[in-house]
């Protein structure tokens, strides 16, 4: 199995003190999922509660990538906090729909939209859909 032939790029910015915006570029699959997870864990460690995942530059995501999103979703929900997916490509959107993750993790079309969702539901740990 080829290893890391598609390097993953993750840029982290902080639109707000407790909000981490991770802009992901590259394939989110079994080869890159661990690296993605490290970025998320690092932000969790630094006390961020809301995670905005910009997946507009992710052409492909497999179950490994999805599991990472689900894991940070579970962590954030316990804080309580939230995870938002921003501008997924059709393929990723398809996977999110297929697995039902889009039922649980709200999908926004922009950072502003996601931030608005963060503001609207600040202390609600449970949400069945976005």
């Amino acid at each position, binding site marked *: 199995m080829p290893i890391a032939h598609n390097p993953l790029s993750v840029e982290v910015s902080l639109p707000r003190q407790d909000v981490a915006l991770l802009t992901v570029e590259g394939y989110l699959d079994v080869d890159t999922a661990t690296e993605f997870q490290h970025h998320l864990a690092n932000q969790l460690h630094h006390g961020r509660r809301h995670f905005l995942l910009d997946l507009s530059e992710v052409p492909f995501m497999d*179950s490994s990538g999805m599991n990472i999103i*689900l894991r940070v979703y579970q962590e954030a929900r316990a804080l309580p906090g939230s995870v938002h997916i921003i501008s997924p490509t059709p393929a990723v959107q398809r996977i999110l729909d*297929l*697995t*039902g*993750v889009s*039922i649980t993790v709200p999908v926004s079309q922009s950072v502003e939209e996601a931030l608005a969702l963060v503001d609207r539901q600040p202390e609600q740990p449970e949400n069945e859909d976005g």
Partner: protein
Amino acid sequence: MSISEHPSEPAGVEPRLDTAGGVDVPPVSPVGRLAATVERLSREVRAAQAEAEGRALIELAKGILVERLKCGPAQAARQLAELTEQARMTPLQFAVEVINQAARDRMSEVTDAFLAATAAAGEPVADPAAVRLRAAESEALAADDTQSVADALLEQALRPLGAVAVAIWAAGSDGSLTLAGSAGFSPAEAARWRYVPPDVATVARRGLSERTGQWITSLSETGLPSIGRHHHPDGGRAALPAGTGGRIHGVLEIAWPAPLPPQPPQLVRQMEALAELCAHTLETSTLRHGPAQEPPRVLPDAAELMDLADGLHDPALVLVPHLDGSGHLVDFRIQHVNSRFLDPAGRPRAVVNGALLLEAYPMAAGAGELFRGIERVYATGEPFRARRMNLTALVDQVPLSAIADISISRHGSAVLLIWRIEDETARLASLLQHAQRLGRIGGFEENLLTGEITWNGQLFDLYGRPPSSTPVPLEQLPAHAHPDDAVAIGRFLRTLLHHRRPASAAFRLLRPDGVTRHIRVVAEPVLDTDGRLLLVRGAYQDISAQHWTEVALAATRDQLAHTEQQAHERNRLTLQLQHAIMPPTQAPLQVTGLEVAVRYRPAETEQLVGGDWYDAVVLPSRLVLLCVGDVAGHGIEAATSMVVLRNALRGLAVTGAGPGQLLSWLNIVAHHLTGAVTATAVCGLYDPARRTLRWARAGHLPPVLVRGPEAAPLPLVRGMLLGAVPEAEYEEAEVQLAVEDTLLMYTDGLIERRDRSVEESLTQLLTTARHAPSTLDQQLDRLLTYSRSDTDDDTCIVGIRVD
């Protein structure tokens, strides 16, 4: 060949003692002298060569030389001896050689090379002066020192020529002149002139520097000082260089009481011959006495000391003071080195012998202060001893140093310098000490009879004990070691002390400071002549660093092997598990009006065996439960979760609940599995009576319906994957099937590709599924065969076909 001259007439001169043998020489006429000389030489040979035949041959050879060289027998004898020595032959051998040469008549070549310069001396002599010269020559030859030669020359040859005094000067290598012998001067005058330093212009000096005879009509005219000037200020002088073989050994100075008229060439040549005669004497005299006749009489002292030095077992040098022109001590001459002498720089003995101390060891004047020590000893007579002094010698300008013990003492006017260069054994021992320190090796020796124990400093360090403490006997070693090492130490002691064989052991030394060191001890027994154990000696080495490296390595190796084996085991187990639960193919279900087929293809790579599952079972309600699921991840954890979920679903299905409800419950099961398991599944209940399939999905791909030439996925009803959230609801859908319809449930191993979306992959699958072969089994096989999946994932397919 025969001797060409014969003795005829004895001379009226008293006999003298010869150096070689002691023979009476009657120096009368050349013929008589020749006869006498032949006689003397023959006796000399007799002493050396007892054979008559050999003697005759040597005599013959001399005769040949006399004739061919036109020289006197003395000259011939000397030449013969010299040539014999040069040729490294016995005199007899060489004599034969000479005779052979003569017989072939090539003698002239040899003679020319030998003594062309002295040819003048070989002229036929007729006048009385010449006879006297010959007599003087003969007598001089017989004399044993230069003084005698001077006497003989004056009496026999020069007085008749009007000369009143003669002085023989020996030239030193430094250009000085030493009065080697004189006659006709008062003893006081001779003593005053015993030594002429270099560069002092005298008559003799001029003879030396000009290298030709100096004939001075009147001494006062030249203004040159010389011996006896006050007695004969206006007298004539001659200074003739005394040389042999291109080397000037000194000067023959002859004094006349009155101004000297120019001498006839014959006389000049004869006197030059006398000078040459002196040269021979000077040469042999110098050889015998070294730089003899030097100022303060050091020789007797030095001679004794040389004998003493030769008896010493250490390198010894006999030094004599070396004074400058003004009598100040400037250096010491190395008068003698004994046979044990070893130059610190490794130079041959001959290079050092005779050299000035500061020339041989310029560095002696430096930091080591060896020279100052010698000076002080020479001045005060107080002996000087020093241990481990650093001697430095310059060899080709490279300073080489050596450590030596030094002893300096004065004996008479000479100084004895003894040194003992730290020898190789001592150096090795010192080296070993360093090595022990670096290697953290502690040495010990234990005398088992006296109980005496010797430890080196390093061993005290190893034990963490002060050097002043008592060493630990070997027998008590267990008390200082880790209890677990008792067996090893016991074996070590038993081998060493009981079996008396060399032994070694590794153990943990518990030091008083609480530090544990890993020590290796090696020891060997030393037995006395009766075979009793006398000594035990050996060494401890601290192998802690090495030990821990080894331990770490071994552990890592074990761990690696273990991990590898474990992984292999686990993979095999996973596969077995999967096979046990889900055979790659399943016995067909007996359901009226429905064909059911399943396929399971494990991942090709063993460690990727994952958590895919399928199930097809007829429930008590006569409904058929159809299911395909996929636990995220690979390996034994995924497989275990798969087993749990599959069995749970079977059990839950018995309740008669619908697929949505079943997945809701299954989500709870998955959510509560340890290890944050997520899984996807699609679950359907087929009612054979109504040919309907009621289904729900949890994040899984929807089933594909193949109807005629069409293949299409069922709608994507809402349903979250299993285990991600504590509670989830699953939308249900129902599809009415018709005869010949085929419905496929599958895991994403069938379609997953990195380079395209699920959509595209699905289209590919549908195209494959559309070309439905005659049987369901064939269709599933075809799907597996033509699957465009590029991930090596395991794959499940469940297919039903309505009959």
